[in-house]
């Protein structure tokens, strides 16, 4: 298992898997599969995958500890960057295909519509995380500072779920499901903080990260 997780082929495979949602959109686009309202479909699909990938990214640390697989950290940055990638597609779809770069209209939306406001907040908060995702930035900022900054993902994920919840008309089951997963992931962290023995190693993912990325 450990060998499998450290193999560069596994990493490449995860990379390709993360591209599947995009490939699916492309395939549907070529085969008339984007429904009668393709722009809405693309907006929803990219939004869904942003949220899902953030959740998967947030699963890395608990899984590492609960399963005793520290190597999982190798995938965290890539998963996070893919979340950002789909977030960019989602945002681009909105300002391009929905608003046609009418920036005044976009700004009005952000100011006036709460679900757009929180969605925008969630997206903007991802930008510094994506920029500082490299080993170089971890060194520059220092582990503690870097970790503090990257806890911003908690705000993003909560804002993302609220964005979804405020968007649906009545079918709150799906946004609530995401919300429940977020709650579990965040509560686990809280519990791990107060009971460090919960995991197999110290609750400090930063220590391992630079070493792994240098390797």
């Amino acid at each position, binding site marked *: 298992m450990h060998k499998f997780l450290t193999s560069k082929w596994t990493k490449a495979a995860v990379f390709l898997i993360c591209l599947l949602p995009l490939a699916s959109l492309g395939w549907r686009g070529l085969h008339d599969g984007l*429904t*009668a*309202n393709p722009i*809405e479909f693309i907006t929803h699909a990219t939004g869904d995958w942003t949220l899902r990938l953030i959740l998967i990214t947030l699963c890395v640390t608990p899984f590492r500890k609960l399963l005793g697989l520290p190597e999982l950290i190798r995938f965290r940055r890539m998963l996070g960057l893919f979340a950002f990638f789909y977030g960019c597609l989602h945002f681009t779809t909105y300002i391009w295909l929905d608003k046609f770069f009418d920036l005044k209209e976009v700004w009005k939306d952000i100011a006036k519509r709460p679900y757009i406001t929180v969605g925008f907040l969630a997206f903007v908060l991802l930008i510094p995380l994506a920029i500082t995702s490299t080993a170089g930035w971890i060194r520059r900022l220092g582990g503690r500072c870097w970790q503090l900054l990257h806890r911003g993902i908690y705000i993003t994920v909560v804002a993302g779920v609220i964005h979804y919840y405020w968007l649906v008309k*009545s*079918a*709150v089951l799906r946004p609530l499901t995401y919300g429940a997963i977020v709650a579990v992931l965040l509560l686990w962290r809280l519990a791990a903080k107060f009971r460090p023995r919960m995991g197999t190693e110290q609750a400090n993912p930063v220590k391992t990260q630079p070493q792994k990325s240098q390797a």
Partner: protein
Amino acid sequence: MRSRDRLPGHKQKKRVTLELEVTPKYLGDVVEMLIRMKPGLTYADVTPREVYQNRRKFLRNAGLAAAALLMGREFWELASPSSRAYAGTKLAGVTKSSLSTTEKQNTYDDVTHYNNYYEFGVDKSEPAKNAQGLKTYPWTVSIEGEVKKPHQISIDEILRVAPLQERIYRHRCVETWSIVVPWIGYSFSALAKLVEPTEQAKYVAFETFYDRNQMPQAKYTGIDFPYVEGLRLDEAMNPLTLLCVGMYGETLPNQDGAPVRMVIPWKYGFKSAKSLVKIRFQKEQPPTTWNRLASDEYGFYANVNPTVDHPRWSQARERRLGEFFKRDTLMFNGYSDQVASLYTGMDLKKYY
């Protein structure tokens, strides 16, 4: 087999007989195969859309179908009334209406695969799949309340109340997409006159079909079914208000509200209740489903109005399905001439 494709329909039927005599064992498959051959026989000639789409049921009925092929279409209709006319079969004697728009119609595919019918699932693509099993015959609509002649009216009777017209209407959803659909039906007022509303009748309440067994997805929607809607009596009696039994020349597909629905083209789509089972004339304003769910977002009137935003999004523009750029939304969805007078003196920001 190939050469037979080009033969005219009646000759083809003869060949079918021959084929069936030769290989009775594969009767079902053969019949289906022949039905699927394009020229000559059309679906409407042989069997209703509902049946041919449901393969298993089709094979079960194959014996009957074979008999029908042998003895003619009349036998089939006699033997299987449940699928006689109400699942995508042609509607005869439909006349054009001056109330129709000349705008480009959306495709049948768009209108049948992009549906809000929450009882069959919340995704737009779900009703097309999940509604196929809905039993739409026999079907009765109860017309009751403040009427002189309350009536349990069957779908067969409904089809005969008034001459059927094709009404090509713009249809604007509260979610800011729109379509142009060639509906078939007649003004709701024709049905109302049949039951003679009393002086007391000020509103009309609509209730739609709900059966949790046929609609298992409904419980995940957060909506308290059955779906209810309503109109003010004068709105209901406006000639534009359509009692709709078909579209694109045929009876309504299940996901579009078979067998009978309302179409109120100057209001957001959710006002146009589908699969009606009860029409009640009454004194008080009836509760409506979306209003009950979120009264600040969905009013009783729900007139299409580009100047009154949904609290969460603007209603100024819309995307016509099939178009890339958004277009401006028109007041009363472009039906101001016919309906604006219904609301003179009303503050439409208050009565949204």
